[in-house]
């Protein structure tokens, strides 16, 4: 059970949007985190690596800044076992590579550009995620 938090959701979502617009304004790219991550790890040049690494470092620093400003750690609860994490991680890694994007790249940036590919991709992964949770929690029982 997690609480419905519409205000935090809208404030956070707006910040995500501002971040995505900053990526476009400064770097001229869509803010797809899977793409930025994959480019940082499988980088083709040092020049391309630097901004990606800096962007990811800024993201990783965010919870510490949040805790420093609000005085409390962000709510966090791991919903599965380590084995499930590893299996799901492999699937997400394979899926975003073939699907060319994730929730940020397709679901935010792609939809904002009204890209037909992103509309299809977002529809597919959201529907499949809902179906997976339904099967996992209600059919085979979690």
């Amino acid at each position, binding site marked *: 059970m997690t609480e419905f938090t519409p205000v935090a959701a809208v404030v*956070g979502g707006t910040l995500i949007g501002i971040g995505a*617009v900053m990526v476009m304004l400064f770097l001229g790219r869509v803010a797809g985190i899977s793409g930025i991550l994959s480019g940082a790890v499988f980088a083709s040049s040092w020049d391309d690596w630097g901004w990606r690494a800096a962007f990811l470092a800024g993201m990783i620093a965010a919870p510490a800044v949040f805790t420093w400003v609000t005085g409390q750690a962000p709510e966090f609860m791991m919903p599965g076992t380590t084995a499930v994490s590893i299996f799901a991680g492999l699937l997400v890694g394979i899926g975003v590579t073939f699907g060319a994007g994730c*929730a940020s790249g397709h679901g935010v940036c792609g939809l904002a550009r009204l890209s037909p590919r992103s509309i299809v991709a977002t529809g597919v992964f959201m529907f499949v995620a809902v179906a997976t949770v339904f099967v996992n929690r209600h059919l085979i029982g979690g």
Partner: protein
Amino acid sequence: MRIVWALITGLVFGLGITVSGMINPSKVLNFFDVAGTWDPSLAFVMASALLTTAVGYRLVLVRPAPLFHAKFHLPKTTRIDRQLIAGSAIYGVGWGLIGYCPGGVVPALGLGHTEPWVFVAALLVGMAIARFTRNQLAKAVAA
């Protein structure tokens, strides 16, 4: 200069993930659990992020070029093919199993728990497998 702004931008984006609650995989899974402990918060996150981005892109993309790069790199592919659909479906299964997407898990690395690092390690292995497979497929088609 570009590196500094990239860091600040990453921080803003990461704060968005953290404040919105998307950093918490349990909250994300509850958004997907429409028939159970449904938490609609993520719909508000997506909608506000999307609206802000759509308006911001309109203002930014009238510029001839971005501030710290020679030109805009917008995705040019328009084909809706089996790779896009199958890949997105595989991603959906993974996301539905654990509640982590790449954007959610990167800030979670800074929380000091081991689990997000395990997930990211597996994610990178998955990416490497997919890249290798895709290259082999491309070679097979070309041959």
